[in-house]
């Protein structure tokens, strides 16, 4: 399946928390390939794409951290104006709300990572429009 799983960590929103979490990952020999951190008032959620998911989850849980796996969709889009808008149109047109979105360009390949509630439906819509959804392995190979 072309779903990508992120390791999501629930932390207090205060100084030192990112260092605390990433130190545990580094000590477990886990490499972070992509990250976002969102804060909301008292708490923050860190989301990581890592090379060794199971190792990361158990290393964090062993230290009492609250961890969850989060399914997101990653896709390659043309590196030109209007690409994000096209994706947003497809989702909006099907009444799918974009909860979170981030993107980057690496080696002239434009990659979007999106979070939606209706993952399966969104996947269908996007693939029908000819977009290539990346698997976990493909994301890690980037």
């Amino acid at each position, binding site marked *: 399946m072309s779903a990508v799983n992120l390791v999501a960590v*629930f932390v207090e929103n205060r100084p030192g928390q990112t260092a605390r979490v990433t130190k545990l990952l580094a000590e477990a020999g886990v490499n972070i390939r992509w990250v976002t951190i969102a804060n*909301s008032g008292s708490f923050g959620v860190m989301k990581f794409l890592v090379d060794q998911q199971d190792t990361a989850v158990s290393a964090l849980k062993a230290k009492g951290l609250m961890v969850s796996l989060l399914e997101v969709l990653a896709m390659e889009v043309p590196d030109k104006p209007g690409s994000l808008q096209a994706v947003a149109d497809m989702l909006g047109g099907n009444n799918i709300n974009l909860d979170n979105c981030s993107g980057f360009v690496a080696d002239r390949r434009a990659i979007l990572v999106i979070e939606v509630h209706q993952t399966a439906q969104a996947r269908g819509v996007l693939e029908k429009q000819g977009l290539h959804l990346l698997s976990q392995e493909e994301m890690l190979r980037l």
Partner: protein
Amino acid sequence: MFWDQESETLARPTLEQLQLQRLQATVLRVAQRVPFYQRKFAELGIDPEKVRSLADVRRLPFTTGADLRAIYPDGLLAVDREEPVRLHTSSGTTGKPKAIFFSRKDVDNAAELIARSLVMTGITRKDVLQNMMSYGLFTGGLVMHYGAEKVGCLVIPAGAGTSERQLMLMQDFRTTAVHILPSYALYFASFLEQKGLDPRKDIALRRAFVGAEPHTEETRRRIEQAFGCDVYNSYGLTEMNGPGVAFECEYKAGLHLWEDNYILEIINPATGEPLPEGQTGELVLTTLNREAMPLLRYRTRDITSIIPEPCKCGRTHRRLNRITGRSDDMLIVRGVNIFPQQIERVLMSFPQVGRNYVIILEGLDDMTIKVELAAAGFDGQVEHLAALQHQMVDKLKAETWVTPKVDLLPAGSLPVAEGKAKRVIDKRSL
């Protein structure tokens, strides 16, 4: 199961006759021996010889916590100073504590009431009871200990030790029952899970007696679910011997108050007037069987009501509803009266909520509730957490009429109290 079936099932008229005799004897003794009550009787024009019915208890003077502090250390003794064999004190937040003396007979009688209480939940001499309450001046340690020994249990006086040691004792000696603070029970479940243990399977616990902190039905259910055991509510206060004043039976539907040892009244806390049976007000207790330090109409400050209906267990001693709050604990926020238990009830009704919370009052009158999330409450989505926060604020507002700020936190981020949990931090600069 009964410890003292005859006393526990006395027909009401017989029980009330016994109460009257004991009340008359108590009033006469304090009138002879305690200057504090001599003075009060004189002020109110009470003739200690003329207590003719149980209703006459209403003419007697109240005794308050402030009286006990004022007369500290030993002004309320009804026996010679050499008679008492034990001293306990009630935790005073400021200033002097309240000192309570026990004669040898009082120690034995308090143990007797604990024995009744434990046996009515099904405890037998085969049980191993680990007492996880602090030993020392606090009654939760020794008073429970003596009662459980009387039943014949193996009692482990673990005290308020570290969780590691509690667990070791529990596993090595196959503890079947614990006496524990409800806040610590919740923390201890998390502690076991953290170690990769299943609190339902990896320890042999069958019963937990929780008390010394007001708590809600939701908290009881959570403890029961966490350990897969029965949880019984225990009510007591140092001034009345500590634990064993009232206790739940096998039906867990209210707490039987041992009426051959106490006269219970429910009053309007503002006016001091008695309330009809079934109405909610302040619990007032008179000791009927205490030698060293009898107390008349002690204002417990605890808010509850009497359940008038007889209990299926056959005991004739009436039941109290769960204490909804201690009037000393009542918060006034933006002019509204709020009991911390109201907030706990709302929080614990959310399955996503974990096991620890604290209510912070600061600034002019701002209420912030910091609450830990349960592991199952986090699915990685920030939106779900934000929605949860909104729902909690709405429900708290509906319950208390005050709009609080709710801070969600990861499990384990709030401090765990050594003794009784500190649920309210008031930093207001009013």
